């Protein structure tokens, strides 16, 4: 039998529980408000939807990583473009030098021209062997080897092949000091027609893949392909096996090796025309590659725009899933604070409200 329906234990417990509960809540709300704005325990709030949230996070990561690989691809394309510019530039340089020395068959001038051509060839070779983060950009998928062999290097297979072919041509046609196959070659004896045939054959061999890959190129024909969005792949490199490079190599070698010789005027003019035309064609070819890569660059820009848009959408959805409403949280914090204060005040009041104090 009990007369009252309250006990010290129950009133104490009620307040204690109210206080601990409010403190716990306050701590969590404060952490939510001051932290990254996510729910205190996202998993508990989301439950099974956690998997959705994780999937979106993964997609978001994927988009971010696509964006970063796209920037890598862009860098590679940029490097390729710059190198192609250099290559086109050196081709144009060769053309201007050729024009400059066209009517100066003197030995001094020929040597000067040879030096200029050597420079241009070196610049071109350097550009063709451009690397971007350790990869040769013009090597196609065979990106770990130098794609364009240096013609000027000692014992370069291209030079050996050319020299052999040229010697055979001189000796077999009897363009020697004594007209026999064993005599010393005399370039002045070369007839324009013979030279024309020789150059036609040589050009054909430059266009032959086996010859080209054996002497000039280590690159694969297959160009690199990059994924720039979840559904799109683009060509992200070109190779030195393209027509522009071959034409330049042919023109430059012809000019470098033959125009420096003491040729007859007609022969020299014929040779000059072949070399000049080939270089001029090479500029067109290089520019063609530039256009191809330019299209890829454009695709990447478009893809990036779309990726960024998707990223924004995903971020918004994730935020709406995981984030707390800060206004609501701050209102809750205020309520909790006043609740706590009330509980503290009540505790103090109830302590003083004891019959003991009135006896």
């Amino acid at each position: 039998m009990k007369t009252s329906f309250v006990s010290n234990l129950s009133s104490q417990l009620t307040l204690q529980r109210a206080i601990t509960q409010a403190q716990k809540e306050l701590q969590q709300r404060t952490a939510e408000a001051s932290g990254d704005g996510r729910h205190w325990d996202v998993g508990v709030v989301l439950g099974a939807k956690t998997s959705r949230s994780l999937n979106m996070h993964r997609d978001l990561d994927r988009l971010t990583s696509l964006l970063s690989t796209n920037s890598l691809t862009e860098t590679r394309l940029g490097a390729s473009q710059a190198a192609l510019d250099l290559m086109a530039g050196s081709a144009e340089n060769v053309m201007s030098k050729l024009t400059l020395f066209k009517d100066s068959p003197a030995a001094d001038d020929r040597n000067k021209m040879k030096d200029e051509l050597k420079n241009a060839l070196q610049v071109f070779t350097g550009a063709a062997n451009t690397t971007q983060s350790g990869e040769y950009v013009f090597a196609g998928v065979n990106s770990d080897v130098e794609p364009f062999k240096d013609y000027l290097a000692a014992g370069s297979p291209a030079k050996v092949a050319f020299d052999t072919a040229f010697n055979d041509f001189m000796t077999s046609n009897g363009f020697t000091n004594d007209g026999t196959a064993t005599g010393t070659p005399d370039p002045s004896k070369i007839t324009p027609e013979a030279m024309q045939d020789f150059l036609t054959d040589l050009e054909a061999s430059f266009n032959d893949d086996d010859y080209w890959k054996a002497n000039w190129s280590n690159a694969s024909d297959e160009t690199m392909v990059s994924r720039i969005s979840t559904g799109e792949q683009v060509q992200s490199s070109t190779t030195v096996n393209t027509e522009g490079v071959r034409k330049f190599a042919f023109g430059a070698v012809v000019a470098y090796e033959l125009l420096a010789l003491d040729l007859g005027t007609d022969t020299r003019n014929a040779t000059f025309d072949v070399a000049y035309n080939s270089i001029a064609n090479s500029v067109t070819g290089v520019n063609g590659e530039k256009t191809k890569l330019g299209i890829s660059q454009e695709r990447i820009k478009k893809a990036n725009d779309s990726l960024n848009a998707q990223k924004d959408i995903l971020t918004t959805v994730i935020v709406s899933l995981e984030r707390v409403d800060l206004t609501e949280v701050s209102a809750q914090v205020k309520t909790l604070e006043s609740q706590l204060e009330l509980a503290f005040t009540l505790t103090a009041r109830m302590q003083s409200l004891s019959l003991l104090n009135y006896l």
Partner: protein
Amino acid sequence: MSLSDAMKIAQANFANTALQTAVVSKNMTNASNPNYSRREAVLVSTSYGATIATTQRVQNDALLKQNLVSISKSVGQDTLLTGLERMKTMLGGSAYELSPSTYLSELWNDLQTFADTPSDLSLAQSVITSATDVANSLNTISGSLQKLRSEADADIAASVSELNRLLSEFKTYNDQVKLATATGGDANDALDQRDKLLGQISSIIGVSTVVRANNDIALYTTNGTVLFETLPRTVTFEPTRSYTAGTVGKAVFIDGVEVPAGTGGNTSASGSLPALLQLRDDIAPRYQAQLDETARGLITLFQESGQPGLFTWMDGGTQATNVPGGLTTGLAAAIRVNPAVLSSQGGDPMKLRDGINANQNTGNEASFSVLLDGYLKGFDANMTFDPAAGIDESTTLLEFSTASVGWLEQQRSAATTARDDKAALLSRTQNALYSASAVSVDEELALLLDLEQSYKASAKLVAAIDEMMTALMNMTG
């Protein structure tokens, strides 16, 4: 009535007041003792005219029963939630940094990057590292999960021996209550102890009480198994020391009847015992099956030429050469990254690009990506998973791994909500119980004032009678 009678009655009142004061002071001493029920010294008129005080104990059986139910539900839910929280911790913080799904997603990303630049050894290395992370994550979580099971098993063993001890102690106090009730003695202290023990027992397993003659209590579990009836029934359990994924834990028997495990996130478990059984036999093995299926998915996805590729597994002590066809218990603990691609073990990471079991890159091209693209396609393709895992049976590996996290969080979310509800219910029940049966110091103080008045009045009475007697004596003088 005579003066002597008056004196006697006043004397009796002293004794009554003393007893009442003793009861009041006992009440005040126990004001903060939650296991104490308030006593009240009641004055009764007996047939022979005297008034003597008897001590009654405040008791509210309905609230007490409700309290026992609340305790066992709350403790059961708490136990389950603690286990789920521990499983959640295995997955890292709020971003699930350590979960297989996170590492899988990293692996997928790295593989994409590598596929874009297949010539880059460092990218191949990072794929291998990610793959190692995935395998390690599966191994670690699988290990932690089995540790959780073995700890739950140890907890069950501890709970069982505690339950046996509590039951034998319960017999002591129940016998005291029976005796005191049968012989009209004071059973109050024994009742306090018995109620306290009931609380402790119901925190281990939910009980329902049946009161029999002489306030003798028989205890039944919520499933109707006899726990105590005249004598405590034996609770038996054979602990299993160490657990692997395939280990089946032993059941707990009360009076020869198996204790059923709780079910669901908002668990049906009453008390810690069924909740621990649920953790050990339902939740953890279910999650293990999900991990095993994730591991199988990985091995299947990266298989090459019909043999395990990037991921392989240890079948016993040796590296397996077959791809498991279905749910293989313990696969998550056995999955490894193929040593053939681990440079630390003399392998070549580039074999990932070229083929581990047979060289597919016959052209020896640095940017060969046929295999890599194949793996990436595999990530997007639906796979078939075992229904024992309890989640989507046909989905992609990545989605399966996140669905596994979602499954755990769903359980935890339900458990958290239920814990809050059950804790609130317990709090309310306890409050009601304490309001009804605990001590209010103010009330006791007021009662004490009353007693003081009564005592003073009796003293006055004695003094008055004494004076009257003295007057009488003087007269005879």
